[in-house]
C-alpha cells in the first residue's frame, strides 16, 4: 500500500515541480487537461497484477525507480553518433526530439508540401492559433490507459502534424526520439498528435533510439485522427536502450472510408509495453496492424491491441509475430470488439510466436467480442519452435546449424518486415534482425 502511495506521490510531486514550466502553462484549457489527467492517474494508480490488461507485465520496476520528470539538463551530444542514428536515408523530412526536447538543428522540415504542417508540440501548445487544441486528446482514452493519463499530465514537447483537406505528404516524415546519456534516471512523456483531414495522405515513421545504455523511462503517446477518406501509414521502430523502460500508446480514430496501417517493430528496451487502440468510428474503414517483437536476454515485450468496430463494413487485419530467445518474454493480447451496429465487419487477427530457447516464453491471447450477427471474424495464435525438418533440410545442404536456425528465424521475421512500405527501413530492419541472430553474419552474404 505504502509503496503504491509513494509512487503516486512521486509523480504528483514531480507534477508540482514542473507544471509551471510545461509548454503553454498559462493556457487554462491545458492546465485543466493536465490536472484532470493527473487526477485520473493518481486515482487509478500504477497497474497491478489484478488488472487483466497488465497480467503479464509488471511495472513495479518503473515505480521503484521514481524517474525524474524534470527535463534532463542539456548535455553535450556526440554529434557523430547522433548523425548515425538519425538515418537520414529513411525519409526526406525529419523532426528530432532529444531527451524530450525538440532540436531544430537536427531536424529537416523544409519543402513540406502545401497543406502539411509539422511542428514541435511545445511550440504548438504555446500558440493558441496552432489548432492543436481541437486535436489534442481526442483519440486518447485516459480512463483505460493509466500511462496515457500520466503522459497527458506531463504533456510538453513532441510533434504536431496537421494535414489539411486533400494534403498529400509524398515523402515520409520521420520522427526520431533520441535518448542521450543525460536521460539516465529521467522520464519523458513525448506526445505525437496527428490530425489528418479528409482525403489527406501520409506515411509517418516514429523511432525511439538511444545513444547510450542509460536507464530511463519513455512514456509515449501517439494519437491519430483520420478524417473521411484519409490514409495514414505509421511505421514505429522501438530501439531503446537495453536498460530502458518503454511504454507507449497509439490511439487512432478513423473517419468514413479512411485507411490506417501500422507497422510496429519492437526490438529494444528491457521492458516494452505497446498499446494500440483503434476506433473504427465510421462506415467502410480499413485498418491494418502489423507487428514484430523480438526479445532476448531478460527483455520483456508486450503488445496489447484493441480494435473497436463501431460501424458497418469495416475491415481490420492484424498480423503480429514474436521472436523470443534467452529468457525473453513476449506477450500479445488482441482484443477485437464488434459492436451491434458493425454489420459486415471483416476482422482477422493472427499472432505467431517463435521460441528459440528453453527459457523463452510467449503468452498470447486473442479476445473477440462480437455483438453483430453478419460478420466475418477469424483469429489464430501459435507458439512454436523452429521446425526440426527444416533445420535438417538446410543442414543436409551444407549449412551449419547456427546458420540454418538463423536463416529460418530471419525468414519468420521477414514476413512482417516485407510489409514495411519504406525500402530503406526494410533493408535496415533486415540487418537489425540478422545482427540479433547468432548465425546472422554467415547467412547475410547470400541475401
Amino acid at each position, binding site marked *: 500500500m505504502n509503496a503504491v502511495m509513494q509512487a503516486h506521490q512521486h509523480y504528483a510531486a514531480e507534477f508540482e515541480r514542473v507544471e509551471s514550466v510545461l509548454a503553454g502553462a498559462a493556457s487554462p484549457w491545458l492546465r485543466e487537461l493536465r490536472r484532470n489527467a493527473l487526477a485520473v492517474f493518481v486515482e487509478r494508480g500504477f497497474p497491478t497484477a489484478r488488472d487483466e490488461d497488465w497480467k503479464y507485465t509488471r511495472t513495479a520496476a518503473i515505480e521503484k525507480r521514481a524517474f525524474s520528470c524534470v527535463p534532463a539538463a542539456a548535455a553535450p551530444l556526440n554529434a557523430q553518433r547522433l548523425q548515425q542514428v538519425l538515418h537520414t536515408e529513411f525519409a526526406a523530412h525529419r523532426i528530432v526530439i532529444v531527451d524530450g526536447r525538440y532540436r531544430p538543428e537536427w531536424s529537416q522540415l523544409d519543402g513540406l508540401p502545401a497543406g502539411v504542417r509539422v511542428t514541435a508540440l511545445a511550440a504548438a501548445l504555446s500558440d493558441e492559433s496552432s489548432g492543436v487544441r481541437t486535436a489534442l486528446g481526442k483519440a486518447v482514452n485516459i480512463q483505460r490507459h493509466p500511462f496515457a493519463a500520466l503522459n497527458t499530465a506531463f504533456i510538453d514537447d513532441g510533434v504536431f502534424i496537421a494535414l489539411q483537406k486533400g494534403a498529400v505528404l509524398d515523402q515520409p516524415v520521420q520522427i526520431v526520439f533520441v535518448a542521450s546519456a543525460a536521460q539516465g534516471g529521467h522520464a519523458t512523456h513525448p506526445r505525437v498528435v496527428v490530425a489528418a483531414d479528409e482525403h489527406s495522405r501520409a506515411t509517418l515513421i516514429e523511432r525511439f533510439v538511444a545513444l547510450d545504455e542509460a536507464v530511463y523511462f519513455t512514456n509515449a503517446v501517439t494519437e491519430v485522427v483520420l478524417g473521411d477518406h484519409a490514409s495514414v501509414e505509421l511505421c514505429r521502430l522501438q530501439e531503446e536502450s537495453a536498460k530502458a523502460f518503454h511504454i507507449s500508446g497509439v490511439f487512432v480514430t478513423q473517419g468514413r472510408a479512411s485507411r490506417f496501417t501500422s507497422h510496429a517493430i519492437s526490438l529494444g528496451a528491457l521492458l516494452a509495453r505497446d498499446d494500440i487502440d483503434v476506433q473504427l468510428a465510421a462506415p467502410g474503414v480499413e485498418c491494418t496492424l502489423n507487428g514484430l517483437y523480438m526479445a532476448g536476454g531478460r527483455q520483456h515485450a508486450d503488445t496489447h491491441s484493441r480494435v473497436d468496430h463501431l460501424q458497418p463494413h469495416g475491415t481490420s487485419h492484424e498480423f503480429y509475430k514474436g521472436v523470443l530467445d534467452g529468457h525473453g518474454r513476449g506477450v500479445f493480447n488482441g482484443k477485437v470488439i464488434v459492436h451491434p451496429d458493425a454489420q459486415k465487419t471483416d476482422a482477422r487477427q493472427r499472432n505467431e510466436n517463435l521460441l528459440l530457447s528453453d527459457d523463452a516464453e510467449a503468452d498470447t491471447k486473442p479476445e473477440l467480442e462480437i455483438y453483430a450477427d453478419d460478420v466475418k471474424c477469424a483469429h489464430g495464435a501459435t507458439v512454436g519452435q523452429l521446425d526440426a525438418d527444416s533445420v535438417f533440410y538446410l*543442414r543436409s545442404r551444407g549449412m551449419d546449424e547456427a546458420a540454418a536456425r538463423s536463416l529460418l528465424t530471419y*525468414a519468420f521475421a521477414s514476413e512482417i518486415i516485407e510489409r514495411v512500405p519504406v525500402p530503406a527501413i526494410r533493408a535496415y530492419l533486415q540487418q537489425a534482425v540478422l545482427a540479433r541472430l547468432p548465425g546472422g553474419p554467415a547467412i547475410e552474404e547470400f541475401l
Partner: protein
Amino acid sequence: MLSIKNLKVNVDGKAILKGIDLEIQAGEVHAIMGPNGSGKSTLANVLAGREGYEVVDGTVTYQGQNLLELAPELRARSGVFLAFQYPVEIPGVSNVYLLKAAVNAVRKHRGLDELDAMDFLALVREKMKLVKMDEQFLYRAVNEGFSGGEKKRNEILQMALLEPALGILDETDSGLDIDALKIVSDGVNALRSKDRALVLVTHYQRLLDYVVPDRVHVLAHGRIVKSGDRGLALELEQKGYGWIETQAAAL
C-alpha cells in the same frame, strides 16, 4: 566409397535396422528396394545424419572416414547428398538463396573460391536445363507451393549443383507421373559418373526402367535379404514382396 557393416539402428527404442552390410564403389548405382516399413528410408536418413535415429551397433565408412560421427552439414560438404522423400517447404527463404548458400558451403569446404552472383547464376541456369525447370522457380520460396514433381526436380537440381560423390535418392519416384518420372530419371542419368555412387531407395521397380542399377538389394524387416542384378527388380515386380518377406521372417 561407402562401406556399411552390421549397421543396427533403433527408432524410439524399436529395432528398425537389424544388421545391414553393404559395399558401394565409385561409379556404381545401387537400388535398395523393399516393402513399406522395411527400413529403407531409415537407412537413407541415417546416412544423411538426421536426428532421432539411434545407431546401436555397426560402422559406416565413407571415403575412409567414420560417417556417423560427422554432423549432417559436414557430410553434405564432404559429398554426401540426400534427395528427400518429402522435400521441406521453407517459406521466406528463396530457392536461389538456398542453392547459392549450399553451393558455396560445399565449395568452401573443398578449398574453392565462393562463386559470385553472376557465375552462380550461369551455373544454375545450365543445371536447370537438366531437369527442365523454369527460372521462376529460383525466386520462389524453397518448395513452397511446388507440385510433387517440381519438388523432386528441385532435389535433383540441388544434387546437380552440389556434385556429390555419394547421392542417396529416397523414394524420388514416389508421387511422380510418367512425364515427371522421365525428367527426373534423365536428370539422374546425366549425373551418373565413374567418380560418383548413387543409391536409389524405392518401393517400385519402374524407376529402374529408366535408371538402370548395377546392383539391387532387397530390404525386409531391417535386413538385406537378397541382392542381385537388375533381374531381381523385375522378379519383384512380377512376384511382389510377399515371398521375400516370408523368407525374411524365416531367418
